């Protein structure tokens, strides 16, 4: 089938049912196959929204001034990417969620990084194992990881004090005691929820609860689902009970939907929530908007009390059909190199200082970069709560696990998200929902493996 027909066909599906959006092409004026540091270089899915991005891009431009870098700003969009691929004019580089890498690698739309790593002498040992797992399929590296987002437990100590509890008494390893603790912390008056006790953050954090219970929801090679494991069922049952005990999912969700985590009226400042696992970025927001909040940050723990966290983040991939793979490889190396991260973190620290706000660090997929940033740049803010929180976040990076690259990652995710949602909506019990999810996920994974 000719390329023209394929492009036409792609438009056809949407013509019949949805209004199609236009595709995006890579630079048409690329100097194909140029050596490192020459020709046009196009990216998709990346934005120059802050100093972390601009400093690193500037570093590349300085190192490779002959490369005509064209950054199409905006978040990664599957439809846009696939349109570009189908038209035979993909961008050289795409910045995407690491969990998508496996699917695109399996389909052959992105290149293995083997040559790039060798050619640019990229030290893969500098990246965190969890981040590397997410970009490795069948033993081949398909992407270079960027940030490393981890989950920790945030506690509002002022509210704990009201409940005559201390932060140490909030023990998330003791699942049997969680309902009682939750009941003590939550505030439900006249059927109306006005304070969340413990938010388990499901569906999205179910893999972390399952891991805490000793179960992986998918095999390490990303090809076998393990959703109906009794330990996963127990994890889901535990999380759902925490929610249903707080007035039911309808009220719980509607209350949580009103939260603004990015403003001065965030749920920590307004005492709307007591204990909740969340990504590390909230610490930045809390430091900026609620520096006086009585915040305590603890590691999420497994049932033995051992620190545990789920890691995720973005990654750079070089597309199949990239016109300037050499420059793309050079760009990726520069963007994720230790010195570049350090320069970016320095710019962030200076920007925060100029704004009179604390600098709480930058957490990357590059362990060496993080060490340099925290050893040489980071200065404790003087606010013990936030300084301790930074130390906690740094410490859990080593305890991180990630959902591995999978050839049918999107379908696998949909299967278990739908299962959790059915349970939350009261349509199914955890065991039945996860059994169905297991069947759906297995079918998708088997099909993708063919």
């Amino acid at each position, binding site marked *: 089938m000719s390329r023209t027909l394929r492009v036409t066909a792609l438009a*056809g599906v949407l013509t019949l049912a949805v209004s199609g959006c236009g595709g995006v092409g890579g630079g048409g004026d690329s100097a194909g196959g140029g050596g490192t540091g020459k020709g046009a270089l196009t990216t998709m899915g990346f934005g120059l929204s802050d100093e972390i991005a601009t400093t690193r891009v500037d570093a590349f431009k300085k190192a490779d001034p002959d490369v005509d870098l064209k950054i199409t700003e905006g978040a990664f969009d599957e439809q846009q990417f696939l349109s570009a691929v189908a038209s035979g004019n993909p961008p050289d580089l795409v910045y995407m969620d690491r969990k998508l890498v496996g699917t695109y690698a399996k389909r052959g739309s992105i290149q293995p990084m083997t040559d790039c790593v060798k050619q640019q002498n990229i030290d893969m040992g500098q990246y965190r194992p969890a981040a590397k797992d997410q970009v490795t399929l069948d033993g081949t590296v398909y992407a270079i990881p960027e940030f490393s987002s981890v989950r920790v437990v945030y506690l509002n100590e002022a509210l704990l004090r009201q409940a005559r509890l201390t932060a140490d008494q909030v023990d998330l390893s003791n699942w049997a005691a969680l309902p009682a603790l939750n009941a003590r912390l939550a505030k439900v008056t006249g059927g109306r929820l006005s304070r969340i006790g413990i938010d388990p953050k499901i569906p999205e954090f179910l893999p972390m609860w399952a891991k805490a219970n000793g179960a992986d929801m998918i095999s390490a090679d990303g090809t076998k689902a393990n959703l109906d494991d009794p330990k996963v069922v127990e994890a889901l049952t535990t999380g759902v009970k925490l929610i249903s005990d707080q007035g039911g999912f309808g009220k719980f969700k509607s209350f949580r939907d009103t939260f603004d985590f990015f403003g001065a009226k965030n749920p920590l400042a307004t005492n709307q929530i007591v204990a909740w696992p969340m990504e590390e970025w909230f610490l930045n927001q809390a430091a900026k908007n609620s520096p006086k909040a009585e915040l305590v940050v603890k590691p999420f723990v497994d049932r033995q009390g051992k620190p545990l966290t789920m890691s995720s983040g973005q990654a750079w991939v070089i597309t199949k059909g990239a016109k300037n793979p050499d420059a793309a490889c050079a760009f990726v190396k520069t963007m994720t190199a230790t010195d570049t991260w350090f320069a970016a973190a320095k710019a962030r620290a200076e920007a925060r200082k100029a704004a009179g706000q604390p600098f709480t660090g930058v957490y990357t997929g590059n362990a060496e970069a993080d060490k340099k940033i925290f050893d040489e740049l980071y200065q404790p803010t003087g606010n013990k709560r936030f300084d301790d929180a930074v130390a906690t976040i740094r410490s859990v990076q080593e305890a991180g696990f990630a959902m591995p690259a999978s050839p049918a990652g999107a379908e696998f995710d949909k299967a278990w998200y*739908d299962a959790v949602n059915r349970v*939350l909506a009261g349509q199914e019990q955890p065991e039945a929902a996860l059994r169905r999810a297991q069947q759906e996920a297995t079918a998708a994974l088997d099909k993708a493996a063919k």
Partner: protein
Amino acid sequence: MATTVSTPAPGRRRRTPLARREARWAYLFLAPWIVGFLVFYAGPMIASLWLSFTEYDVINAPRFTGLDNYRELMADPQVARSLGNTVYYTALHVPLVMAISLGLALLLKRVGRLQGFFRTVFYLPVMTPAVAVGILFLLLLNTQDGLINRGLALFGIEGPSWTTDPTWVMPGIVLMSLWSLGSTVIIYLAALQNVPRDLYEAADLDGAGAWARFRHVTLPMISGSLFFTLIVNTIASLQMFTEVYTMYFGNRETQNRFNSDAASFYVIHLFQEAFQFLHMGFASAMAWVLFLIILLITLVQVKLSNRFVYYEGEDQ
């Protein structure tokens, strides 16, 4: 002696140079639309028909699989569920929009000098971007703090969980869809204003009351517009996508949260199959099935319209 005058058959009549020139100009002016139709509609449709018989992931070349996609589609419970949801929504949305729009248009017709103002007010919501409507209604339908449940609470009614209770998700979506009924109101208002006054006067002379005038004069005279909006709203309902996708499936953030089976519409499922799971061949088959469903429903409506719709100039 009888003489016969031969007249050329209508189809063989030679056109005058002026008529030919006019025809050429007509085709010239039509050309952009014809070319647009061929390039952007007919071509892609034919290509997607071919793709519906293949396994195609957009990245690799399609592989012919015969009717496999259609067989799989018929057996897929998620397709059945999403189609059921879509039909349920259409069955609720279309009659409601038509009834409420007609009521509003009748009220608007009675408004005197302020009609222009109210017409604008009713039409303004149509200008709101669909994504904004989705977000807006997520807030309005919030169980605890949404304006709708707060309003119900004033009457002592505890509002439902519009966005999480599977029973109430669809009514919530239908409620949202009423936000943009302004177009239908404007069409009905124009139709109402075109009903000849002498028909009402004649009905008055015959002693017809308000209901009889509405039933035997207004409705028949605006039946063309009613039929038009029936078809257009039905097609739009069966293709519902943007608002619901924004509310429940819209971005990475919301995908990582709650979405309900009850909000899974056919086109949303099609979009997920095509662009998230890379099953473009399967999605093409879904698109063609939807096309045939819409075609069938429209044909039935057109057939029925012969009995119920009055067009000016017809002998009915």
